[in-house]
């Protein structure tokens, strides 16, 4: 005897395309409830922050001395970290993607380490290496008079250390996915390695380099733990936006909220920029 199909399923057979019908069905309740809870978890803090924003005093709060200096330090250090990641991270990504050498997995592990390391530990490690009594830091101090901790150079070193892996990972993935035939075609047309890199490889990987730069910049802008540990929290010298927010939470809650709002706006802008970029690639 033929097994009877449930009426609903039988009706659906042979009618419109399955995709369009399925799309109109509501999501199952056992997924909907946890998904909604997750969404609330994401949305609530943003709403909480927005609800407490002292809109009228905002201009004054953001142009104050502490906020202005923190903003400037954050912009300088995060842009410097992005530029350093382009100059150092893109070549590193190329080496990891294109050349086979013994110990490549060790190199990749080292590059990925700051992504998973607690930032405070990163800062402590930087201190032991580049601090005034550190492995290399002592030499730097004696030879060049350069002291990284408690200076903007220390901030740049800390945020670059933490953020650059995002550039390497993004660009390495893009280079791996690049069809090697384009570079080969360029070679047969007489292009040497530098021309191939400049006119074929990098332009073709450009969308990912841009994405990597945006991610790196956003991560550098938000860096807290490594900066605090390695460069300290000196207002006007090493106090970046996240540090200023942390300090202001104790003393001047309205200023903390205003600074947080700036960071939320910047983060949203980065997301929007990346979204636009992903949109165009599809």
């Amino acid at each position: 005897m033929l097994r009877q199909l449930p009426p609903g399923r039988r009706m659906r057979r042979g009618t419109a395309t399955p995709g369009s019908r399925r799309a109109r069905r509501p999501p199952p309740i056992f997924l909907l409830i946890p998904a909604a809870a997750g969404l609330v978890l994401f949305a609530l803090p943003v709403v909480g922050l927005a609800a407490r924003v002292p809109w009228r005093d905002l201009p004054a709060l953001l142009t104050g001395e502490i906020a202005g200096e923190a903003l400037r330090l954050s912009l300088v250090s995060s842009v410097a970290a992005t530029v350093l990641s382009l100059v150092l991270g893109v070549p590193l990504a190329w080496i990891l993607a294109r050349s086979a050498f013994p110990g490549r997995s060790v190199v990749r592990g080292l590059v990925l380490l700051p992504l998973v390391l607690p930032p405070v530990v990163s800062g402590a490690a930087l201190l032991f290496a580049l601090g005034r009594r550190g492995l290399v830091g002592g030499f730097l101090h004696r030879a060049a008079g350069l002291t990284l901790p408690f200076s903007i150079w220390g901030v740049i070193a800390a945020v670059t250390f933490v953020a650059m892996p995002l550039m390497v990972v993004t660009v390495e993935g893009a280079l791996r996915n690049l069809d090697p035939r384009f570079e080969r075609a360029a070679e047969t047309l007489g292009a040497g390695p530098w021309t191939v890199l400049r006119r074929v490889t990098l332009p073709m990987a450009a969308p990912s380099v841009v994405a990597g730069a945006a991610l790196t910049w956003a991560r550098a802008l938000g860096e807290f733990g490594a900066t605090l540990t390695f460069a300290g929290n000196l207002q006007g010298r090493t106090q970046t936006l996240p540090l200023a927010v942390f300090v202001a939470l104790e003393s001047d809650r309205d200023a903390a909220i205003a600074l947080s709002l700036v960071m939320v706006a910047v983060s949203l802008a980065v997301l929007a920029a990346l979204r636009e970029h992903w949109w165009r690639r599809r």
Partner: protein
Amino acid sequence: MRTGLQARIAVERNGFSLDVPLDIPPGHTAAVLGPNGAGKTTLMEVLAGLLPIERGYVRLDGRTLDDPSEGVFLAPSERRVGVVFQDGVLFPHMGALENVAFGLRAAGAARREARRRAAGWLEAVGLGGGGLAERRPRFLSGGQAQRVALARALVTDPAMLLLDEPFSALDITARAGLRQLLADHLAGFPGPRLLITHDPAEAFLLADHFVILEAGSVVQVGSADDIRLRPASRYAADLAGVNLLTGISSGRLLTVEGGHRLQVAESVEGRVIAAVHPRAISIHIDRPSGSPRNVWQTNIRRVDRHADRVRVQTGGPLPVTAEVTPDARSALDLEEGSTIWVSIKATEIRILNNS
């Protein structure tokens, strides 16, 4: 000094070994034919410098491009070997003109000069005007893309030209146009040329000698007639048997040279070359009835027996080669001189070009 290509190529790669002697005099076109996996692409990569050889040598116009025993290996950029890749492989982030100008710019030409010469080449491949120059590859048709690829390879004045399955991604109309264009440009190209293909008809139209490659080894080298008359393998025999007919097509009627008329499935105007596979030609003792429109009576001029099939060459009015099984041969009692009926379905006649 133009002395052409002399090569003896031995490479091993993932358990596959390629061992090929190859000589192409200047001004000649060799076609490398072979089934998938025969080593055609590996051969192309070796000549372009994308893969070093393990033993042997590659010399072009007296220059050594690759010779492990002398420790010489020239990078692709130093070889002056132009390549038209399968699917074109145009740079997706550049317009057609920039693609063609790429080689000139890499050689140090100024931007304006490079663009001027590239524009001349775009015109030479039939893509002048029409706003195509600035168009990105993904907005070009397959045929247009291959024309740009040809211009891009030729603009640098290479010493040798490699064509790697240049037609494989094209539809019939685009194939015909590109084939004609290639024939014109090859005629004006002084160096050796190598066409890699698995389509015998295209090889016969463009090349003057043939290298048949199977499982990494050369099975046969020779002219079209050498392969037609003495095929060295089953694959070679398959290639060689293809009937090429030239004539004038109008509507769905093809008037073959000599005056015989055939019904064809495609409506094409003008001079054409058409291909018919021997297995697509049926032989009958009595006049066949049914769908084939192309039926005529003739006699058998020659019968070639191979292990598992029989090649039958017919006489006038339209001499063709047909292939039957040994069983069919004995059943129909096919001998030289016997009178037979020949039929070809219109859909089995492949129009290759309309020049």
